[in-house]
């Protein structure tokens, strides 16, 4: 496969590219979904192809073919250069690449139980049984699913990169919906998007879906008659680690993507409130806030050995003791910003151009347990499990909703609250962080549906997180 990639690169160079790289990818996926006691869909897919990136002037040209033959590889290389050359009709400043040592190597994610070795019947039994359990415990609609992504890729570049990787990702999700007179309530486990990692079927077994199905169904039913989250201009807010993963993803992860900061995503995904001139001096949050982007974390969904332009994975400090110190970058964006590549460029398939994506962007743990946070809170609200998420195009103003909330009074968890929401402005919100969960609560949440780019790409990102407490937060915004 490396020879195919090299042939594509050579064709692009011969057609005028000053740099080119090519990825040959084979992807195999399985997705099964059950609803109300029966498997409703089982979909498997195989995709193989070559994607070639060619650099001419200020623009990348990219061409992909669903064909792994030498002729197709050469054609893709030639077409990539042709597409790049067309960009010179609307030119900009020449695009440079941050220097890296051309890597040659292999990497594979660790899999303890091959998900393909688990029979379809066993997988189906699991999903059907948990949906039946949820129906038995009060759900009106019960859903469960699993997904497997198995990707092999071979990279070659005109600088001498020659890398192959085999990444297996796996996980599952389930939810219970209760239908009331005027509204619906939903509880998900382990999170709204489930839980996924660069692991095998052992991850699904560890989730213990059967052990949690009755509880979430009962909670969904209880929420229908719970009191509504009060509308308060300021209260103490404790967020569970799953909601914190969403908070990190939306208000930190996207904000520190260097392509957004440079305006490359301005028309679609948006820009960022961050200004590179403030790197190293801007206060992003309280001193408890330490965020890293680390693709080397074993088993996390955003882990890999090399990014999709061949830069070895390495941890990057993003926020250190509340100060903004780093960004997610690739070779092109890093060169423009005058920094080394952060190895954060990935594509969601052979047919998409690699772009800046989150790796495992998460909080480093602190000292407290969730119980200690609740005990230390006299008057506040605890919310968990993301339900809705909306944030402006600069990643500054957010309003997030959770599936479930509890009132906290006198250091104790009290009555259940439905439709909890909170809203804030990124740096003010993070500045109010005053309690941080400890290492025993550190969870590597996986987000398998991060949309970005045109044409749209679906990224898989990881978010190590812990429960946190924030002070003086507006909650209970209603329509």
């Amino acid at each position: 496969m490396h020879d195919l990639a090299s042939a594509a690169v050579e064709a692009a160079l011969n057609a005028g590219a000053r740099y080119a790289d090519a990825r040959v990818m084979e992807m195999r996926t399985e997705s099964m979904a059950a609803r109300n006691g029966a498997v409703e869909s089982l979909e498997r897919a195989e995709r193989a192809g070559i994607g070639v990136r060619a650099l001419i002037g200020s623009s990348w040209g990219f061409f992909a073919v669903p064909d792994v033959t030498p002729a197709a590889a050469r054609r893709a290389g030639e077409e990539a250069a042709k597409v790049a050359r067309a960009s010179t009709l609307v030119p900009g400043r020449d695009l440079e690449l941050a220097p890296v040592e051309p890597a040659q190597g292999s990497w594979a994610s660790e899999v303890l139980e091959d998900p393909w070795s688990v029979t379809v019947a066993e997988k189906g039994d699991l999903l059907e049984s948990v949906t039946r359990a949820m129906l038995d415990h009060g759900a009106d609609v019960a859903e469960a699913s699993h997904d497997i992504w198995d990707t092999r890729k071979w990279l070659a570049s005109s600088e001498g990169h020659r890398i192959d990787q085999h990444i297996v990702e796996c996980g599952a999700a389930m939810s219970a919906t209760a239908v009331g007179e005027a509204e619906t309530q939903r509880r998900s486990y382990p999170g709204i998007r489930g839980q996924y990692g660069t692991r095998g079927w052992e991850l699904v077994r560890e989730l213990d879906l059967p052990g949690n199905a009755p509880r979430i169904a009962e909670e969904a039913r209880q929420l229908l008659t719970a009191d509504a989250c009060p509308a308060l201009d300021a209260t103490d807010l404790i967020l569970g680690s799953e909601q914190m993963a969403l908070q990190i993803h939306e208000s930190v992860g996207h904000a520190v993507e260097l392509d957004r900061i440079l305006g490359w995503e301005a028309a679609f995904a948006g820009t960022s409130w961050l200004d590179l001139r403030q790197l190293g001096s801007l206060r992003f949050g309280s001193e408890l806030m330490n965020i890293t982007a680390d693709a080397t974390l074993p088993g996390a969904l955003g882990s890999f050995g090399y990014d999709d332009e061949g830069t070895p994975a390495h941890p990057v400090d993003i926020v250190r003791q509340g100060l903004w110190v780093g960004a997610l970058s690739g070779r092109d964006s890093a060169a423009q910003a005058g920094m080394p590549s952060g190895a954060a460029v990935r594509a969601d398939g052979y047919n998409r151009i690699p772009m800046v994506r989150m790796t495992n962007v998460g909080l480093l743990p602190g000292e407290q347990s969730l119980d200690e946070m609740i005990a230390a809170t006299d008057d506040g609200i605890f919310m968990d499990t993301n339900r809705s998420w909306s944030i402006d195009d600069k990643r500054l103003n957010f309003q997030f909703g959770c599936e479930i909330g509890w009132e906290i009074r006198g250091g104790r968890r009290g009555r259940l609250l439905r439709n909890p929401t909170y809203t804030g402005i990124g740096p003010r919100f993070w500045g109010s962080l005053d309690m941080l969960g400890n290492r025993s609560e550190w969870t590597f949440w996986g987000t398998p549906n991060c949309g970005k780019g045109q044409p749209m790409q679906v990224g898989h990102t990881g978010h190590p997180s812990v429960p946190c407490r924030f002070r003086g937060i507006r909650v209970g915004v209603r329509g």
Partner: protein
Amino acid sequence: MSAQPSEATADRVLELVRTRASSAEAEVTVRTGNQALTRFANSSIHQNVAEELSHVLLRVAVDGRVAASSFDGPPDEDGLARLVDGALEAARASAPDADWPGVAPVSHAPDPDHWDQATADASPNERARRVAAFVGAADGLETAGACETEATVTAFANTAGQRLNGRATAASLDGIARTATADGSGRAASMRLGDLDGAAAGGRAAEKARQASDAQDLEPGRYEVVLEPQCVSNLLQFLFVYGFNGRALEEGRSFARIGEAQFDPAISFADDATDPGQVGVAFDAEGTPKRRVDVVERGVTRAVLHNRRTASGAGTESTGHSIEGGDAWGALPSNVVMAAGDRSTEELLAGVERGVLVTDFWYTRILDPRTQVVTGLTRNGAWLVEDGRIVRPVANLRFTQSFLEALGPGAVRGVGSGRELVSGGFEGAYLVPALHLASWNFTGGAQG
């Protein structure tokens, strides 16, 4: 590109299924084509991409046990055999699906003729020229956006004898112009690249950006709004996905009540794949012709959309609104058409006592599907309107609003006469006008 359909591949897949499992039901979709997108930012093209498409999807049912399998690649004999074997193996290992509705019966699908050979053959230079026109018309303002073309040829066949062919092209140009303090958007979409006027879109974006500059905050609260077409398309997406969806209705999660006047009498909309202003083919992922469905007529909810599974559950027939990979969502729209009114945007604004003109919505998310409470923000230009005149630009606002109430009886004060084609979620396309609504709940400024 060639417009030759891929019927032979579809037939070969069915033949392979029959030789391996003579009693199996099967449906196969073969799609070929190309997709290209020229992306610009900081007023220059920075990402210019293109791909060839070759996709085969097979769904089989063996004694009521169902599985789907697909692959991207040349449809050679080895690949097709592997596809068929994989699907049959997975189906046989699955539990029986008691609600499997069977494959679609034979029926005719009209050819909406949403094809333009010049768009199918469009070169990267042709897209770049439209980008150049957009950038040039912004007259020095920084610009960003994308010009996209797509051409697909689809062949469908199933073991019940249904055979369909369709082909479609689509093109869009969507961008912003930026001042130091504001963005403005301009866009166009059609089945023909030749219809896209880059200079007009760029000029509109620049005009909006300049007029939106130096905006001031507006006190949160309820205001009248004039929503431009992108906002209206967004609003309808939520109504369709969570409401006019046979699955949501069957499960009691939908707000829709057939026969009730749930909307203002000024509101009528349908899903109609044959509308000449629309894009796409006239059959769905299950090979069912897409029927015109009048969903809301003069404010009265008339129907919801169905795929074969939801239709079976409801004791009716599919309306042709299954999308590939969309089983969990239910039946979704592909070609929404809202009836135009009789007022220009200026006339809509003239009727506003005190309200906000909104160009685009951004990052809208549902809080409750039954009540259709949605939160989101304005983007690319908003203005305060008083006594029928634009008074000043306002900074982006967050809203938390029931979309159902916003279009409810007595809530619509005017419907625009012009319509724009806007791309929506789940690959749907929305041909919609601007609306003047009586009340919209702005819950905060974007700066806090």
